[in-house]
């Protein structure tokens, strides 16, 4: 049962494999350049396991010691994860002993993958979702180790490698767009966030964008709900 779920889950995770290897390598290379070896890369990718936050964490590790600041910056950068949890409340309900790990490992990429795929009929959906999450973290850890070790062996110009994350989100967006009956939520996400970025600047826009998205989706509930059930 587990074997079957793992086999079935693997092909679905290929886009994340690509993205996480690229991104993890980028993270590992950068971390190494700041004087942290593979053990640090491994522990960070195992315990924190949040792509963009780990890039921010590198900055924190080369700044003066301030635990409170690290805590609040993390809350800000990762506040979007609150949305993921809200979206997964029902799907995670019956996960039993797998639920703690599923909550811990709900990254941007795992969330978008889980929200866009369904387990085929012959597969246990619990283990299918679990293996998607587990494989993804495996790729991330592997990527960050490869990058850190490669950084100590060879020097190469990795400028721009972080575009892998952008490309991954664009691909997911295209796939969701092709599946969705209604494009209003997707458009709202882009337009509201872009407006907030212009209005509030790169350091502060994300919380405003989240609030704007929540409010507008709430106001449109009647309309979107009706369309969904048509």
């Amino acid at each position, binding site marked *: 049962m587990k074997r079957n779920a793992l086999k079935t889950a693997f092909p679905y995770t*290929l*886009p994340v494999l*690509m993205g996480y290897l690229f991104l993890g390598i980028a993270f590992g290379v950068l971390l190494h350049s700041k004087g*942290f070896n593979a053990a640090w890369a491994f*522990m960070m990718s195992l*315990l*924190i396991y949040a792509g963009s936050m780990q890039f921010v*964490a590198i900055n*924190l*590790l080369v700044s*003066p*010691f301030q*635990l409170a600041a*690290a*805590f609040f910056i*993390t*809350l800000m950068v*990762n506040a*979007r*994860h*609150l*949305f*993921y*949890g*809200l*979206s*997964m*409340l*029902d799907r*995670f309900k019956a996960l039993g002993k797998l*639920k703690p790990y599923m*909550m811990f490992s*709900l990254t941007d990429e795992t*969330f978008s993958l889980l*929200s*866009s795929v369904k387990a085929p009929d012959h597969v246990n959906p619990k283990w299918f979702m679990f293996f998607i999450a587990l494989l993804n973290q495996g790729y991330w850890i592997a990527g960050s180790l490869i990058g850190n070790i490669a950084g100590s062996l060879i020097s190469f110009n990795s400028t*721009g*490698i972080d*575009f892998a994350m*952008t*490309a991954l*989100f*664009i691909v*997911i*967006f*295209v796939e*969701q767009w092709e599946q969705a009956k209604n494009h209003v*939520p*997707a458009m709202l*996400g*882009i*337009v509201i*966030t872009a407006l907030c970025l212009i209005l509030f600047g790169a350091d502060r826009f*994300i919380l405003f*964008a*989240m609030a704007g*998205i929540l409010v507008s*989706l*709430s106001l449109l509930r009647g309309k979107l709900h009706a369309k*969904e059930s048509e």
Partner: protein
Amino acid sequence: MVLSTTEAALTILVIAAATLLTRVLPFLVFPAHKKTPDFVAYLGKVLPFAIIGMLIVYCFKSVSPSAWPYGIPELLASLFVIAVHKWKHNLLLSIGGGTILYMIMVQYLF
């Protein structure tokens, strides 16, 4: 290193704890044994689409449209990813190709 080993380790643990908090909080507020309110269930359906849109914009937050290179590499690489993905639906080609194209542009052309 600015931080001692202990300080760096503590910083990482605090970041890990705060990250976990943002992931677990919704499940603590809306526990599994209670029925999820209709409104929250509705949000769960429409939010994923909006969030991916938000994340794409988030990736472009450091792009400055008013200074050279005006976000041109980001725009071109993004159009490449969209076009190639719509055409082939091949993830390696879309993500790998787009990233390499972007790296070439920012390293050699811009």
